[in-house]
């Protein structure tokens, strides 16, 4: 309890960052589930959502900017899939992956062109940016809102996948393209929907994440994107609950390390530098022990 109280603010930001990673990680894991593609551009879509917010909010009120950013990010996800992945549908998987890396650099370079390489100050979104005090730890409202919003969105997504026609089609397509087509499912439409959902969640994550970090650079998407990807692999890529749980675990662990906790006699400040390295060391350990991740797909199917 003492440990918990001392590190409360780190727990809080861990849960918050975890929620943001979770929202990004869902995009990775859903796209992987359906296309067996690691969408390297996903973190950059997240960054672009941040930049759109910066530019649009300078001239428009938040009531218009926020829905507009969500909409434009969804559109960006859709266009990327149509232009960079759909033409390669029957190409080897490696080609599609290289196309994804290409899109990632394209988005970063475009961002560099527009920002001139300068860090752009993220607007203060009213309410989310306000400070509050919880049990003598001071934090922003966004820290508290994030985990709840994440849970609500994950529940909505789960309902969509389990109980709607498009959700059923997504599950079918992720199993078997050809048989899905024989059912009359237009697989390109289902794949587009998947990208659009992933982009929508990434754009919500960007609102929450950048409110905490205050600035956006062309490479802002790289690290959170990578962490979210690790979370997705940790949870078992392809599994949505896995990605969410993995993201929270990584967010919390990473922040506890950054925080005051003294581990092995070395004070917390000594470990901060290694918090990113920790995430990847953690991934290696998990993959050695359980190669399919926490909720990974079974390797063999009964035919």
């Amino acid at each position: 309890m003492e440990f918990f109280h001392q590190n409360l603010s780190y727990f809080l930001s861990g849960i918050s960052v975890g929620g943001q990673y979770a929202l990004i990680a869902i995009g990775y894991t859903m796209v992987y589930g359906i296309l067996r593609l690691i969408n390297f551009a996903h973190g950059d879509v997240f960054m672009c959502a941040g930049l759109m917010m910066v530019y649009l909010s300078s001239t428009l009120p938040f009531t218009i900017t926020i829905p507009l950013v969500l909409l434009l990010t969804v559109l960006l996800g859709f266009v990327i899939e149509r232009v960079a992945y759909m033409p390669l549908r029957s190409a080897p998987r490696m080609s599609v992956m290289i196309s994804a890396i290409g899109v990632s650099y394209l988005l970063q370079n475009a961002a560099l062109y527009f920002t001139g390489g300068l860090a752009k100050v993220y607007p203060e979104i009213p309410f989310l940016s306000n400070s509050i005090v919880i049990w003598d730890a001071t934090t922003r409202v966004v820290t508290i809102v994030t985990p709840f919003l994440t849970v609500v969105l994950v529940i909505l997504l789960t309902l969509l996948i389990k109980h709607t026609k498009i959700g059923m089609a997504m599950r079918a397509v992720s199993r078997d393209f050809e048989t899905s087509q024989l059912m009359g499912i237009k697989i390109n439409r289902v794949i587009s929907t998947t990208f659009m959902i992933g982009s929508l969640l990434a754009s919500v994550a960007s609102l929450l994440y950048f409110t905490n970090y205050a600035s956006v650079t062309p490479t802002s998407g790289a690290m959170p994107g990578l962490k979210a990807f690790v979370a997705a692999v940790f949870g078992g890529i392809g599994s949505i609950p896995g990605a969410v749980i993995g993201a929270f675990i990584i967010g919390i662990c990473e922040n506890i390390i950054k925080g005051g906790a003294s581990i092995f006699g070395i004070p917390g400040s000594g470990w901060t530098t290694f918090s990113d390295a920790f995430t990847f060391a953690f991934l290696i350990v998990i993959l050695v022990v359980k190669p399919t991740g926490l909720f990974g797909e079974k390797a063999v199917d009964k035919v």
Partner: protein
Amino acid sequence: MFEIKNLFVNYGGIEAVRDISFSVEEGKIVTLIGANGAGKSTTLRTIAGLVKAKSGTIEFMGEKITGKDPASIVGKGITLVPEGRKIFPDLTVLENLKIGAYLRSDDISKDLEWVYSLFPRLKERSWQYGGTLSGGEQQMLAVGRALMSRPKMIMMDEPSLGLAPLIVRDIFSIIKEINKEGVTILLVEQNANMALQVADMAYVMETGRITLSGKGSELIDNEDIKKAYLGK
């Protein structure tokens, strides 16, 4: 009702189907028999729109359907029960049936009842995952799923493959029953004996060509067929 004219299909780098022509009359059971690799499956996959024809035409209800995508073929009333059943293992039995009716927006409860009356086992197991069913049950599910689209013509690719002889007999009696209810059937089989017994019309395929055709009852007594396919 259904007619193929001078169809050529290249598949996997070879000329899998070479100049075949045949027709299917409404309400009949028509079978394509032949050895492995004769081009039977490729023919069905081409009709279903999964494979593009090199040349030739496919006509259904007086309309040219060559080159259409699989979804529009299903929409026109032709459904394929694929080889190896290909049910969705992590969808429930009920979901597998519902997804068969994916293109329909009208009420499907009557068709669901019909499929359940044909296959009472599926009703008992409606909540189970497709992957937990036995091979025979999966084949029933695959046929039931295809029926859910309310096809005018149903194509079946090797429905007896890998099933025990008793189950095969069940499947064939179901095929006859479905046909009695007015669904036209195009059946591809390696089990020539069973197929010829139920078929009104049969075509024999060899290395991409149709080499022989006739009524099912005639071919079953044909000496060449007996030697080549019936093991007599």
